[in-house]
């Protein structure tokens, strides 16, 4: 009882998390990849978005090739003569940016909507939740495709499309969790004080719905990175001058059969490693937060 | 006197957890005669339920019986394979839980469940099985048992559901039933009905009963002998009325004095200070000493059990007869 430092819910959570080696390794990978992505300009040998620096003569060179810049292209170059390592680092940057931004906004919108619906009850709840059920009956990719086709190219548009495709998952989860919390005595106690409804929703109900929402968030961030890659692969994402991972894969796709595998494979590997690591972290969080799996 | 039905010696059941070893049952010894009703009282975390589970071999990991012996009719139960224990449960010994839905399957009718319970130990014809089911349900006070046999558990009220669970426990006429807080979740009027029925059933069938409860009054109305548990040990035992009239252990005294029915309305109740200790971090010596009014230096060492005239207590400073 005296272990005050480990006593906060977060402290206990971290202590338990650190017991799973896989999860810690996965978290390290996530942190590393995100760190590399954020600090890409420091590590990348080349600025892949500076078209002036691209040398067409260096295009489609295999890994290990020393190009006009005088440095080694460790992962080869793409069809425009970009250093693939740099392109991947910058591509990760865009993917992570978009994935995290879309995930965070979808989280905020969805959680608020779901918790409010659960709190209000009655017609408001039925209206909101039926709409969300309706939306969930369409595949997210279809929705994102249609929306990004309508909204056009650009980071903001892409994020908006991803949010629209994903907030419903957060809303569904928040609604389920909040409905359970709503009936608990600590919420009734807050209402009987009385406290303003908004305070009860945001200070009491939502913080207690966080565990399942965090699990959904890890999965959805991975999903939105994958979704973004898919859209880019299909040519609906960002402009060609700012290739994200999906577009790098798409660009290299036509050279796959001609033996120039690296243009597609390496961005693909980066994408898989990132998504897998995020999912492994998410799995551990889910196991830890699921009371039924508690020993 | 003939050999006792149940003989428990130095039973210890520990739970091996992340935080340490919780000694839920730590050196418990007692005997139970044929057809006897024994009350086992204590607060939550005293180990009373785990004692009951241990008797039936129902302790799940991370818990396990680490020492001691449990003999039912002379047969050692500790170390018996699960399959053997399963065969004995229901036929020789049975358990009634606080929540009857622990025993009952929500998707099967009562008739089906009783049929399975009989079928697990002997083969009877469908007709005979049904007759026996009706008989046992009637015995536990379910009106119109024949008509209710094909109902599902959720169609019964809480009290009736507990009666069905008791009926299933009685089905194969076990030698011993362990009942863990079976009336705690029920209303007083229903509790009184079940206590009354339990008492006459046990008498009629000659089944021995261990009644685990925190309710001293209910136990005093039912059980001939009582054991008081604290922090995994039996701190006092003896004939119920004698123990409650003149407790020797300060903990028993404290429990009695904290009952509102024993005090003048509106007056301060005598209270035991503090809270029961964590079973994973017991104080040294007598585990009750931090809360005990008569504790002194010697209580840092564990007291042995003093036995005298059918009574026993585990205290360095037992209260004298009639001490109030």
């Amino acid at each position, binding site marked *: 009882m005296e272990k005050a430092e480990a006593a906060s819910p977060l402290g206990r959570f971290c202590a338990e998390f650190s017991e799973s080696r896989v999860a810690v390794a996965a978290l390290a990978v996530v942190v590393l990849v995100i760190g590399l992505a954020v600090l890409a300009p420091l590590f990348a040998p080349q600025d892949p978005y500076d078209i002036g620096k691209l040398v067409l003569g260096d295009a489609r060179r295999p890994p290990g090739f020393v190009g006009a810049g005088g440095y080694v292209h460790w992962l080869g170059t793409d069809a425009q003569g970009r250093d693939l390592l740099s392109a991947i680092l910058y591509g990760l940057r865009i993917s992570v940016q978009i994935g995290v931004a879309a995930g965070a906004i979808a989280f905020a919108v969805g959680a608020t909507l779901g918790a409010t619906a659960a709190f209000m009850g009655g017609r408001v709840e039925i209206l909101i939740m039926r709409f969300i059920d309706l939306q969930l009956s369409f595949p997210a990719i279809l929705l994102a495709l249609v929306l990004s086709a309508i909204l056009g190219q650009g980071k903001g548009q892409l994020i908006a499309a991803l949010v629209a495709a994903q907030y419903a998952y957060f809303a569904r989860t928040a609604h389920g969790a909040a409905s359970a919390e709503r009936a608990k005595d600590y919420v009734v106690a807050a209402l*009987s004080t009385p406290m303003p409804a908004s305070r009860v929703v945001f200070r009491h109900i939502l913080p207690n719905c966080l565990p399942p929402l965090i699990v959904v968030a890890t999965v959805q961030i991975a999903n939105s990175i994958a979704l973004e890659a898919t859209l880019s692969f299909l040519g609906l994402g960002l402009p060609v001058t700012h290739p994200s991972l999906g577009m790098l894969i798409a660009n290299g796709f036509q050279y796959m059969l001609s033996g120039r595998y690296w243009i597609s494979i390496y961005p693909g590997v980066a994408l898989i490693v990132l998504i897998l690591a995020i999912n492994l972290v998410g799995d551990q969080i889910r196991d830890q937060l699921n009371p039924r799996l508690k020993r | 006197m003939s050999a006792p039905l149940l003989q428990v010696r130095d039973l210890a059941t520990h739970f091996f957890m992340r935080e340490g070893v919780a000694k839920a049952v730590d050196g418990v010894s007692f005997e139970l005669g044929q057809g006897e009703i024994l009350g086992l009282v204590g607060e939550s975390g005293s180990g009373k339920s785990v004692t009951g589970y241990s008797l039936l071999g129902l302790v799940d990991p991370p818990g396990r019986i680490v020492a001691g012996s449990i003999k039912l009719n002379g047969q050692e139960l500790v170390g018996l394979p699960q399959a053997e224990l399963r065969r004995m449960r229901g036929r020789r010994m049975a358990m009634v839980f606080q929540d009857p839905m622990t025993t009952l399957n929500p998707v099967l009718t009562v008739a089906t469940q009783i049929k399975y319970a009989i079928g697990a130990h002997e083969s009877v014809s469908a007709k005979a099985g049904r007759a026996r089911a009706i008989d046992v349900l009637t015995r536990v006070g379910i009106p119109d048992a024949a008509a209710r046999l094909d109902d599902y558990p959720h169609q019964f009220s809480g009290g009736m559901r507990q009666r069905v669970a008791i009926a299933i426990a009685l089905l194969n006429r076990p030698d011993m039933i362990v009942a863990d807080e079976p009336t705690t979740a029920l*209303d007083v009027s229903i509790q*009184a009905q079940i206590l009354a029925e339990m008492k006459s059933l046990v008498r009629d069938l000659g089944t021995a009963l261990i009644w685990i409860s925190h309710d001293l009054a209910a136990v*005093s109305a039912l059980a001939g002998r009582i054991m008081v548990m604290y922090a995994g040990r039996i701190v006092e035992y003896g004939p119920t009325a004698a123990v*409650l009239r003149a407790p020797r252990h300060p903990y028993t005294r404290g429990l009695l004095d904290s009952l509102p*029915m024993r005090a003048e309305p*509106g007056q301060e109740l005598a*209270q035991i200070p503090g809270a029961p200790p964590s079973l994973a971090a017991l104080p040294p010596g007598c585990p009750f000493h931090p809360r005990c009014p008569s504790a002194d230096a010697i209580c840092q060492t564990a007291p042995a059990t003093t036995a005298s005239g059918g009574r026993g207590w585990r205290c360095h400073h037992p209260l004298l007869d009639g001490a109030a």
Partner: protein
Amino acid sequence: MSEPFIAVDAVSKRFDPRVSLGDQIAGALGGAVERRYVRAVDGVSLEVAPGEVLGLVGESGCGKSTLGRMIAGILPPTSGAVRVAGKPVMSPGRHPRKQTTRVQMVFQDPYASLDPRMRVGDIVAEGPLVHRLVTKADARAYVANWLTMVGLDAGAAQRYPHQFSGGQRQRIAVARALAMRPDALVCDEPVASLDVSIQAQVLNLFLRLRRELGLTMLFISHHLGVVRHVSDRVAIMYLGRIVEIGGANAIYSNPLHPYTKALLASVPQLQLEDGSDVAFAPIQGELPSPLSPPPGCHFHLRCPFAEARCRVDIPDLRPAGDGRWAACHLFEKIAKTV
């Protein structure tokens, strides 16, 4: 008698079971859909004087918690009104809201009634800060004061609810209620989930708080012994109605209503005689379903004294002298025969 602090006037609470979509459609198309209501509380009136402790006793499903929640401003009544210090507890209109802080509530389960993600200090300070009973600068001392009042260490403010035992948590819940400076507390089974030895500690706390703060209390419990110990007056509920109300001592020593008699006889007493063979006197039968309570007096099916009119006429609460009231057609007659 002085002006009552809590006045409950003909309050009823009806719960409409959720009507499924299929039934709604069937109803809209003119199909006969049976709608059954649960009358959890059925026309209850009572008053609690300032500084008085009223015990509310009954078995599960009798509506005592629902009544308590209406008095505490958690549930709006379907009809009737609850007034505290002369003012309605709930605002009028379609979406009634609680409009007083003068009555606060203590819940049964202190494991559920404290927000697990807040520190104890924040739990206690939240209400007073929102209602500006205390400034942010003074909050820490204010919280420490109330924690000390309920017998906790001021350092408890820094910790989380899960670090406390059940009894300590219930103290925290009491401190939270008291920090709103209420005149009245509604306590719904506040000791039911506690161990015997802890129960005594918390009951003593309530007795002391009442003495020191002059609190008015509604003390709801199924435990007759506990209620007797803390209450000045006692009300007995059965299936949504009050069947008897009066001074605690009078009711316990001489119950008028057959249900009260039966309930008191059901409570096991501590047996201190060797070989005493206790004859239990259980009430016959089961509690009827609140979905379809029997007509007339709700208790007539289980009542040994029931007559023809008990099956038809609903008995009113009638005065029985000494400030006692009983809802039984026959209590005078029964008193004479017994």
